[in-house]
C-alpha cells in the first residue's frame, strides 16, 4: 500500500464517454471519478460491458467512432488530456502512458518482426536511428524475460506463444518508462501458469520503474493479489472504491457483495454458488434511480423507495472507502449499519 498524501499522477473527474449509435446513445462511461497515485496499482473490476475498457481507452483518447468523450477532465502530468491537441496526445501515447491488451497475439501486427515493433517506439518518440532502436528493443525483450532475445527479435508474432507475445507487448509499453501503464485484462487470454508469470512481471517492473498501473480485470482473485486499491464499476459508474484489504474485508455495496459471493471459496461447502439475479441494464435505457436497483437484494429486503427514483452519489463511507449506495448515504446511514449487522 502506497502512501496517498502524494500528488496523484492521474486524476479522472466526471468522465463521460457515450456511443452515438443508431439505436440511441449508449452511456458506456457515465461520470467516472478516480485518482491514481505514484507507483500504485489500481484494480478496475466489473462484469463485461460495465465500461472498464472504455474508461481506459478514454484516458488514452482512443475511443473510436461512434464513441465520444462528452464530458469530464483527465489530469495527467499537470495537463488536462481532454484539452490537448491530437498531436500533443500522440506524443503522450506510448511515451508517458501506454497500454497492453487482452489478446496479445492479435495485438501485434502479423506482418512485422517483433523486434521492429518494439524498436518502433524508439524511432517515433526518440528519433533513434534504426540500428540503435533495434539494439534497445533486444535489450528490452531480454528485460521482460524473452529467452534468446537476440534471435527472437527476428520472429513474427505468429511464431510466439501467448505469454511471450504479452511479454513483447509489455516491453513495448514500458520501453520509454511511462508514468502510467493501463493493463486491460492482460492475462484473460492466457493459461493460468502463464498468468502468474505475467502478473509477476508487471509487479517486478512496477518496482523497478515506479510505474503506476491501472489493472482492468473481472477476476477478483487477480485483484486481491495485485492491486493496492480497487474500484468496482457497474453500468458505466464506479459504485465502490477502497483499498484492497478494506474492500475484501468489508465490502459495502450490494453489488460488490454479490460479486464476492459468487466466488467459490476453497474448503467451504455450499450447495450452489450465489448469483446476482437479473442482468446488466441496457446502457441506452438506464433504470431511473440507482442503476443496480432492479437487481439489488438489499433494496427489496429493506424496501427502499429512494433507490428507484434517485441515483446515489459516491460518498465516503469509511477510511479510504467510497460507496455509491443509499444504504450508506447520510440519512440512510442507519439502514447501512443495519445491513452491516445483518451481513456479519
Amino acid at each position, binding site marked *: 500500500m502506497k502512501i496517498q498524501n502524494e500528488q496523484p499522477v492521474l486524476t479522472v473527474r466526471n468522465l463521460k464517454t457515450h456511443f452515438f449509435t443508431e439505436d440511441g446513445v449508449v452511456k458506456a462511461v457515465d461520470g467516472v471519478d478516480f485518482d491514481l497515485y505514484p507507483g500504485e496499482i489500481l484494480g478496475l473490476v466489473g462484469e463485461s460491458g460495465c465500461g472498464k475498457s472504455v474508461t481506459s481507452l478514454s484516458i*488514452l483518447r*482512443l475511443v473510436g*467512432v461512434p464513441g465520444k468523450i462528452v464530458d469530464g477532465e483527465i489530469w495527467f502530468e499537470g495537463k488536462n488530456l481532454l484539452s490537448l491537441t*491530437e*498531436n500533443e496526445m*500522440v*506524443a*503522450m*501515447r*506510448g*511515451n508517458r502512458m*501506454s*497500454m497492453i*491488451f487482452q*489478446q496479445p497475439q*492479435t*495485438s*501485434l*501486427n*502479423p*506482418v*512485422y518482426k517483433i523486434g521492429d515493433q518494439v524498436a*518502433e*517506439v524508439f524511432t*517515433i*518518440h526518440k528519433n533513434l536511428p534504426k540500428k540503435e532502436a533495434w539494439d534497445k528493443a533486444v535489450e528490452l525483450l531480454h528485460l521482460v524475460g524473452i529467452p534468446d532475445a537476440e534471435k527472437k527479435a527476428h520472429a*513474427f508474432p*505468429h511464431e510466439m506463444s501467448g505469454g511471450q507475445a504479452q511479454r513483447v*507487448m509489455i516491453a*513495448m*509499453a514500458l520501453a520509454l518508462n511511462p508514468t502510467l501503464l493501463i493493463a486491460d485484462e492482460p492475462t484473460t487470454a492466457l493459461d493460468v501458469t502463464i498468468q502468474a508469470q505475467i502478473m509477476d512481471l508487471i509487479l517486478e517492473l512496477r518496482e523497478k520503474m515506479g510505474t503506476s498501473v491501472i489493472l482492468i480485470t473481472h477476476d477478483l482473485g487477480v485483484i486481491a493479489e495485485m492491486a493496492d486499491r480497487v474500484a468496482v464499476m457497474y453500468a458505466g459508474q464506479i459504485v465502490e472504491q477502497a483499498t484492497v484489504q478494506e474492500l475484501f474485508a468489508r465490502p459495502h455495496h450490494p453489488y460488490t457483495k454479490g460479486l464476492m459471493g459468487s466466488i467459490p471459496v476453497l474448503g467451504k461447502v455450499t450447495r450452489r454458488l450465489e448469483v446476482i439475479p437479473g442482468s446488466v441494464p441496457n446502457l441506452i435505457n438506464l433504470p431511473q434511480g440507482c442503476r443496480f436497483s432492479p437487481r439489488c437484494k438489499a433494496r427489496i429486503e429493506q424496501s427502499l423507495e429512494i433507490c428507484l427514483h434517485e441515483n446515489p452519489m459516491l460518498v465516503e463511507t469509511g477510511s479510504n472507502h467510497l460507496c455509491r449506495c443509499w444504504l450508506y448515504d447520510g440519512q440512510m446511514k442507519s439502514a447501512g449499519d443495519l445491513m452491516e449487522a445483518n451481513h456479519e
Partner: protein
Amino acid sequence: MLGYIARRLVQMVGVVLISAVATYALLNLAPGGPMTGLRQQQQGRNRITAADIARIRAYYELDLYLPVRFSRWLIGHPRGPITVGGTEWFANTPIGCRQPIEKNVRNEKGKIETKVVGCNENVYLRDLEGRKVSRGILLGDFGASWKLLRDRPVSDLIMSRLPKTIELIGLSTLLSLLLGIPLGIYSAVKQYSRFDYIFTSLAFLGSAMPTFFFGILMILVFSILPKSAGLPYLPPGSASAVREYVVPLIGTIQPDTIADRLMHLVLPVITLTIVSVASWSRFIRASMLEVLRQDYVRTARAKGLKEKLVILKHALRNALIPFVTIVVFSIPSLFGGAIITETIFSWPGMGRLYFLALGDSDFPVAMAILFITAVLTVIATLIRDLVYTLIDPRIRYS
C-alpha cells in the same frame, strides 16, 4: 520451397494440358465452323463440287478424326507412318474420312437433320505425308491463320496486335491502381463521411455499369455530340488517325505520333479505368475497414504513432495482402485484352482480334489466344502464391 515450386510446376503442366483439351474441344465440337455456308452454295448457281468440299475440308484438316487433329495441333504429330528400322507402321490405319456419307434423317422432334452415317473414302496415316503441319502449340507454334490472314502464321497476327493491347490495358491498369488504392483507403478511413457516401454510390454505379453501355455513352458524349455541335471532340475509335488534324489549344497533330496515339487512348482508357477503379477501390475499402478493426491497429495507436503512419504502415500493409490476387490476375488480361471495350472503340488489340477470329471461325487464332491466356493464368496463380510468401510472413510453403 524449391520442392514446392517443382511440385507446382508439374501441376501447372497438367492444368495447361487440360485447358488445351477443353479449348480444342469447345471450339471444334460447337456447331458452326469454317464449313458453314459452303453447303448452301451447293444448291446455288456457282455450284461447289463434292471434290471442292473435300479439298477445303482437307485444308482445314476437318477430314481427320478429332483426336488426330488435336494431337497435330498440340504437338505437330502424327505426320505420316511411323518408321522403325526401315519398316513403316500403321501406314494403312484410317485416321479420318475424306468423303463422309451423309443422310437426311428425321429426328425425334420431326425435323430433318443431316447425319454422317458412313464413309466413302478413308484418310489413312500414309496420306498425312507431305501435308503442312505446325510444330505444335506446346513448342509455341500456333500454326497458320485460316481466315483473318490466310496462311500467315498466327504468331504474326498476335505480335501485330499485342503491343496495342499492352498499351491500352497496361495504361488503364496503372491508372486504376494509382486511383483505386488511395480512393479505397480514404473512403475507409472516412467511413460514413459525406465523401464515403458519394464515393461508394459512384463506385457501385461504376462497377454495375456494363462497358458496352458506358463505352458507347462516352463516344456519344465526347465524340458524336461535340462534333455535331461543331466543338472539339475526341476520336471515337481506332488507335491512330489517317491524316493530320487540328486540336484547339494543342495544335496540329500528325497521324501516328505520340500525341495522336494518346488522343485515341483517352476514351477507351477512361472506360476501362472507371470500371476497374470502381471495383478495386471498393475491394480496398472493404479490406481496409476489416483491418482497421484489428487489435494491432489499436496497438499502433496506443504506441503513439501518428494516424497517417497507423494507416499507411500498419493497416495498409495488411489490407493489401488479399488485393495481390486481383492485381496478379490482371496479367492474363494484359495479353488477352478487353474484348468488349476494344470492339466498341475499334481498338486493334488482342480482344478485338479474338472477337474477329471467333466471328470468322478462324480457329487457330482463337485457340492460340485462349491457350496463351490459360497458360498466363496458371503462371499468375503461381506468382500470386509466391508473392504471398513475400508479403505475409504467416504463409510458408514446404
